[in-house]
């Protein structure tokens, strides 16, 4: 018996199957609101009955940690940007409050907006030059930034140097609440701030902005190709995260009345990050629970009754001579971090998506390989399971479905010659990938580009979509040159694409994937989404309708609520096409759309491509399958070694001597 595999599987099940998280995931929104309200009620009603010390702990570290963790979660959990210097924004908020209330004599309330804004500005200042960096490089730069902020405070006379700033004003009383030395009012203040942060995060999460962040997290290049202003959106994530950090800094400074640089060490950033990851990235209840645990546990251990027994045990274990558990607090904290992550890497209350990601990953012998998406997809696709032998692609598109009006209108305004490439040349170092390629594509045409491997087909697509900037030559879309523009701007100008190896946002639902595309035509940004402005609500309503319509248009309306990763291969192709069309293009670029499809699926694809053309869009496709190309294309260009060697109607091209020699080979086209 494969016992090891068994054990592995067993362990995986214990680790991942999680009734609480699953229950939470299954709860309808209304029930979630009820649970949230109950938690809130306890959070309001309980603390007055606690000791002053417990109240103080609930304010700091617990409350402040929760607020900070929520802020950091926007950056790390939502947008997927690893920030190791988050404490810097906390510090900026606190120092702004300190300086304004002491040297300038403002009241704490007057300082509040500035604390938030300065922290936000700090976020933008840090973000602007560094957000182009990815992953761990961003992490080290943010770490550096955190240290720089601390050291600057330590060395600047106006910031009190190492001695810090004393006498920071408490907030004036509001609605009968006296903000003086007692912790309880500040606890409620923090609670209010946490509530505000949660509302903002939830609202953003269900908006164009939140989807953009998810898209960036899952596949930054694909997001950019779908018209997401990745840079701006990342900057917004930093700005939102940092302003929440600034808010927390304001609360903290105005409560304790004294700050110095030692309040903001690197370790603090690490603690907050640990709270986010421990709780479950991206999940609001998880992050709150994680921050609660990280804030409360060390304080608990400090005075725990079990402390003495534990101390003796640990002393005999480590050979130390420690008198109180206090000294073992951090050791236990470290050990529990390890244990927690080893036994529950997804966090306490993971978001549903992250839990799923983890459940399906995990083969032996690979470092972090994802499972074959198609296999998982096929096995989970409900319809496919029972059918023997003949596989049919999920419902072909009903002919009567039409494009949403907004998209059809855009397509209809395209020029007669939609796309015009003039002498396009692309060199990489010494290698010439494209050499003076000129192609012109008419409106409502299906234009095929074929050629041997390495002939420059995908390079051509990448030049058109702005991934590469061509060395020379011009690209004209609807009469306007688009050479040198960024991918998302080119998407906005009217070019949409799909990728050779499908690049959906795997953890987003099919509907959300299409919505990311739809969002390219919308303009709501953070303020609109947070405030729920009419325009935002209108766009959300229309967008959802259009997205549903598009899913129907490509024939997968039934899968709207499924995560993209769980769709069958053919459906993923369709979804990718729907997502591309959603951006409202006048021209659609398909990169090997039939790769990996069986004949039945290919036939359905041909029908879909024709349908798209008939809706008024122009289609350019790269394909190896000669049958498909000959069948569907109105015109075909052949590339070889970066040069166009033929261009014309399919039959003509197929008969061309040079094409046969360079590409088709001796009549073996199958």
């Amino acid at each position, binding site marked *: *018996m*494969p016992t*090891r*595999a068994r054990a592995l*599987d067993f362990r*995986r099940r214990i680790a*991942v199957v999680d009734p609480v998280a699953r229950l939470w995931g299954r709860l309808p929104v209304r029930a979630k609101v009820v649970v949230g309200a109950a938690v809130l009620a306890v959070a309001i009603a309980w603390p007055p009955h606690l000791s002053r010390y417990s109240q103080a702990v609930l304010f700091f570290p617990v409350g402040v940690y929760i607020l900070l963790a929520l802020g950091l979660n926007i950056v790390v959990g939502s947008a997927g940007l690893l920030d190791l210097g988050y404490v810097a924004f906390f510090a900026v908020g606190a120092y702004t409050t300190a300086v304004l209330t002491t040297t300038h004599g403002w009241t704490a309330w007057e300082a509040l907006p500035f604390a938030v804004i300065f922290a936000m500005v700090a976020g933008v200042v840090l973000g602007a030059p560094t957000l182009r960096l990815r992953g761990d490089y961003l992490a080290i730069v943010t770490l550096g930034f955190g240290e720089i902020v601390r050291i600057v405070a330590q060395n600047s006379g106006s910031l009190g140097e190492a001695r810090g700033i004393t006498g920071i004003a408490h907030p004036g009383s509001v609605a009968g609440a006296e903000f003086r030395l007692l912790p309880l009012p500040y606890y409620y203040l923090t609670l209010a701030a946490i509530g505000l942060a949660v509302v903002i995060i939830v609202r953003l999460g269900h908006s164009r902005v939140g989807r953009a962040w998810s898209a960036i997290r899952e596949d930054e290049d694909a997001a950019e190709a779908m018209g997401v202003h990745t840079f701006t959106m990342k900057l917004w994530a930093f700005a939102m995260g940092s302003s929440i950090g600034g808010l927390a800094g304001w609360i903290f400074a105005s409560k304790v009345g004294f700050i110095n640089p030692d309040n903001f060490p690197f370790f603090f950033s690490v603690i907050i990050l640990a709270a986010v990851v421990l709780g479950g990235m991206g999940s609001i209840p998880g992050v709150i629970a994680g921050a609660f645990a990280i804030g409360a546990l060390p304080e608990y251990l400090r005075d725990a009754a079990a402390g003495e027994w534990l101390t003796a045990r640990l002393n005999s274990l480590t050979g130390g001579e420690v008198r109180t558990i206090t000294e073992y607090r951090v050791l236990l904290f470290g050990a529990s971090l390890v244990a927690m992550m080893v036994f529950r890497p997804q966090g306490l209350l993971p978001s549903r998506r992250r839990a799923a990601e983890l*459940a399906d990953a*995990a*083969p032996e*012998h*690979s470092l972090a390989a994802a499972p*074959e998406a198609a*296999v*998982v*997809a*096929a*096995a*989970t*696709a409900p319809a*496919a*399971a029972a059918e*023997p*032998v*003949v*596989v049919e692609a999920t419902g072909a598109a009903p002919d009567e479905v039409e494009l949403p009006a907004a998209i059809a209108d855009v397509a209809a305004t395209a020029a007669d010659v939609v796309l015009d490439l003039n002498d396009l040349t692309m060199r990489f170092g010494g290698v010439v990938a494209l050499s003076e390629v000129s192609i012109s594509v008419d409106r409502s045409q299906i234009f095929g580009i074929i*050629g*041997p*491997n*390495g002939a420059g087909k995908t390079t051509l697509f990448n030049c058109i979509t702005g991934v590469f900037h061509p060395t020379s030559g011009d690209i004209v879309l609807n009469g306007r040159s688009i050479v040198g523009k960024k991918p998302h701007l080119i998407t906005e100008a009217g070019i949409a694409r799909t990728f*050779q190896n499908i690049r959906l946002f795997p953890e987003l639902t099919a509907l959300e994937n299409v919505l990311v595309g739809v969002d390219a035509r919308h303009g709501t940004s953070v303020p609109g989404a947070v405030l729920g402005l009419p325009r935002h609500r209108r766009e959300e309503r229309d967008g959802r309708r259009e997205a549903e319509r598009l899913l129907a248009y490509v024939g997968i309306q039934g899968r709207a609520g499924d995560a993209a990763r769980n769709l*069958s*291969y*053919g459906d993923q192709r369709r979804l990718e096409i729907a997502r591309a069309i959603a951006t409202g293009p006048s021209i659609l670029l398909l990169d*090997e759309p039939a*790769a*990996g*499809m*069986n*004949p*039945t699926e*290919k*036939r359905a694809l*041909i*029908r879909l491509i*024709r349908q798209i053309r008939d809706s008024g869009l122009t289609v350019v496709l790269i394909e*190896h399958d*000669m*049958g*498909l190309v*000959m*069948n*569907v294309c*109105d015109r075909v260009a052949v590339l070889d070694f970066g040069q166009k060697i033929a261009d014309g109607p399919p039959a003509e091209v197929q008969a061309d001597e040079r094409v046969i020699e360079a*590409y*088709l*080979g001796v009549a*073996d*086209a*199958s």
Partner: protein
Amino acid sequence: MLLELSDVRVHYGKVEALRGISLTVDEGEIVTLIGGNGAGKSTTLKTISGLRPVTSGTIHFEGRSVVDTPAHKLVERGLSHAPEGRGIFPGMTVVENLEMGAYARKGGRSMVTAELDRVYGLFPRLLERRSQPGGTLSGGEQQMLAIGRALMAGPKLLLLDEPSMGLAPMLVAQIFDIITEINRQGTTILLVEQNAAQALRRAHRAYVLETGRIVRSDTAAALLDDESVKAAYLGGDISPDDPEASGTPG
């Protein structure tokens, strides 16, 4: 019998990817697995080569059970796998990539040189490119490199996963010729192919997979003529005058 799978089941988390696969490969054969995307073809290969843990069932290679044998051990025992997507080490040169193929073999420099010569004989292109980093090769060259590298291990059984994927028609034919040649030189081959027509033409026997199960098995020739198989998988490509494809005329 070189390889025998009996009722093999494999899970990805809660998802059952292989639902009881049984198949055999005899010495000297080319056996092919065909089926749609997500049918479990690649998973079957990865399970055989030890990359995926088996939930239940048995796998015997040369009569010995290889369930729970890690991938690197299987290579030493003569089972070589050229993975889907080729898996070229982009930062290593062609020679280094090939030498990686002989990583598990004992036999010193002379053995490696001999094997290199054999691979260069099959793929003269690789000789031309031998000091170029693997990442800069074209798709076809990378495929040659992947197959050549798998051969460097001196395998008894060669698992090939989608060798024709993403290749131009002309190259596809060339790759299949080489596969036949490798088999003729004495290596048993288990081939997974999307391009079912080509695969069936070259193989001795074939299995049809669907959603983790084997639904048909027969000689390749018989399946090539089978109407239902034809309808689902053959043609490989759409013929220009495919009646089903011509919906509304453009």
